[in-house]
């Protein structure tokens, strides 16, 4: 706080001198909470990465079983601590019992993933059922996220859900593992996004961990847009139809964002819609042929981007004015 500024106010009679005197004499301690938590985070990150590399480098001398036992020991110790210390589980928000709890739980969940992956890779715990190797941790992570009320673990579970759906589809197709570059992956993306949006809706509607709703919605909306855009690029002859789907979904997100006065989702809807419309425009220009298929087309595209982006800026200015009275994330 700028004490000189408040002294000026007191001189003008806007503020009583007692308040300013209190500000001057009150030696409040300086909070270094954020700084210490960042140090703690980097400590965990450096230590786990260093250990990971060390184990990898000396895998032949250490032996696979020792590594598996070591990782299992970390996982079980972390989870045992969390079960012992956790507050009573509830469908509402539950606070962490202490500062370290969230980090220990996260470490336990990460090593759980390493453990399952390692055991499956080395000892084929689930045989050739590779999907099961990601489904089991998915169920466990979802359970821990709800039981301990941890948004980070919930995000891990959602990512694991994506991996499970992706791997399952890819193994069915016996093709390479990549993101949204094949038909089944596009459809599994659409399915996953729908599932996440439904979960978001129900967690709010039924008031079961309502604060998880944002994470579900956030993942769901981005995955839906990415899947639809991938469809647009994959189905070259049907890109107009896919662009229409993108526009319809953008319209849905936009209307909801306006209703909830959410600037974030409004921006997301506008930007994805802009990508889709711009792609259609560029393709139409260069597919038309004739005079537009050369420098003329290039000029037109450049002018389009300048004009459309200017138009969108004006649009965002107006939306900001309309939403400002009741804004939220």
């Amino acid at each position, binding site marked *: 706080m700028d004490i000189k500024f408040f002294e000026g106010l007191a001189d003008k009679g806007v503020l009583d001198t007692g*308040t300013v005197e209190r500000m001057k004499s009150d030696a409040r301690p300086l909070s270094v909470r954020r700084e210490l938590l960042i140090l703690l985070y980097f400590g965990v990150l450096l230590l786990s990465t260093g250990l990971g590399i060390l184990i990898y480098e000396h895998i032949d001398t250490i032996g696979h079983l020792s590594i598996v036992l070591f990782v299992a020991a970390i996982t079980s110790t972390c989870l045992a601590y969390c079960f012992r210390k956790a507050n009573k589980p509830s469908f509402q928000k539950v606070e962490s019992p202490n*500062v370290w709890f969230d980090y220990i739980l996260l470490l336990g969940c990460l090593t759980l993933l390493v453990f399952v992956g390692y055991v499956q890779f080395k000892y084929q715990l689930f045989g050739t059922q590779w999907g099961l190797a990601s489904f089991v941790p998915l169920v466990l992570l979802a359970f821990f996220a709800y039981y301990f009320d941890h948004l980070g673990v919930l995000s891990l579970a959602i990512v694991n859900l994506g991996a499970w759906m992706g791997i399952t589809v890819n193994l069915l197709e016996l093709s390479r593992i990549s993101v949204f570059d094949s038909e089944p992956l596009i459809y599994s993306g659409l399915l996953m996004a729908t599932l996440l949006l439904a979960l978001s809706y129900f967690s709010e509607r039924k008031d079961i961990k309502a604060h998880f709703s944002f994470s579900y919605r956030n993942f769901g909306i981005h995955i839906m847009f990415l899947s639809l855009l991938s469809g647009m690029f994959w189905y070259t002859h049907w890109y107009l139809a896919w662009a229409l789907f993108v526009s319809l979904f953008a319209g849905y997100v936009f209307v909801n964002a306006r209703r909830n006065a959410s600037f974030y989702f409004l921006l997301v809807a506008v930007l994805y819609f802009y990508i889709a419309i711009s792609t259609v425009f560029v393709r139409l220009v260069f597919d038309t042929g004739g005079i537009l298929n050369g420098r003329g087309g290039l000029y037109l595209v450049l002018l389009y981007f300048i004009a459309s982006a200017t138009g969108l800026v004006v649009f965002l200015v107006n939306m900001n004015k309309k939403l400002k009275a009741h804004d939220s994330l």
Partner: protein
Amino acid sequence: MIAYNKEWLRLLYARGQYTDAYAEGYLSAEQYKTLYNGTGTGLYTPNIFIRIGMGLLTVVITVFGIALLGLLSGFDFDSIAGFLIFYALLCYGALELIVNTKRHYNSGVDNVLLFFTMILFVSGVRSGFNAHSAAGDLLASGLSVMYCSYLAYRFADAMAAAFAVLSGVVFVLFLLHLFLPTAALFPAAMLLCWAIYTWCTRLLAAASRPVYDFVLRGIALTALVLLYLSGNVYTVDVFSNELIGDAPLVTAGNTLTRAFYWAWTLAVPAVYILAGVRRKNIVLIRTGVIFLAVAVITFRAYHSLLSAEVAMILGGSLLLLTSTVLIRLLRQPQKGFTFAETPKAPAELNVEDLLTEKIITRATQ
């Protein structure tokens, strides 16, 4: 002259101060409401997400604008300096227009336009003058200082101020290099940065400066960063070798030179942290911690004592131990520091909403 209404900038500053004082419990809810209601301005500063969106779209407009103008003018690399400076001036014109007619202040649009006008101008003058010629370097950095300082003053912008300080230090180094050997340049840069930092902190401590508060803080932080970098072994080697064209000063230097720069690289971060703890200055503490990491990376770049994984394990353990001990220690405030959260203004008293409603009601009546 400053582009914004100074009174509005003062009101914005006052709003921030009132919110802090209310969060700290020095103002009652009633006092806060009354004071806050008097801080309405005509400046346009949207929500952070709208700001990001508008900034991204301005990048699109500027980049495609450059491409279009390049195509229309039959762009060739011989005339790149003129082209870049011309486009920088176009961005400046657009910035003036948006600020004067639409009153944009940190809206994303003005930030991006300011950034582009600065970068394009600096790149333009740099490529316009012969690289590695003393006069060219001097002229380019001198023009950059003038343009960035003008932008910092006109738009009360901390980023432009930071660029001005950076160009200023480079300008002084090039100027001194006309008379002094390379070895004397870096101690001169240290003194200059120290002087700038001291000047800014004294100005900030002497009186309340609502309009240029953030600019002065930006200059002080930049000077603090440059003060360390002007003695960091890696930056000294790169600057002396690649910009001035001499042998790398530390690597090719004698024992005394090496000892001095290594001591600076490793000890200054600790000095920053200690000074920050003594003065209860969070900026000094944060800068010190970041430079501690930079010092370790610099050391490892020259001397590989341990393998990467062992260094990570040791560093991680040290960080874990330090943070755990400090968290335990500061649960109860100790020597002016605490682990408790900084108080925030309660959400239930959303005065901004009340204020916006009032303005809208007034406008519709």
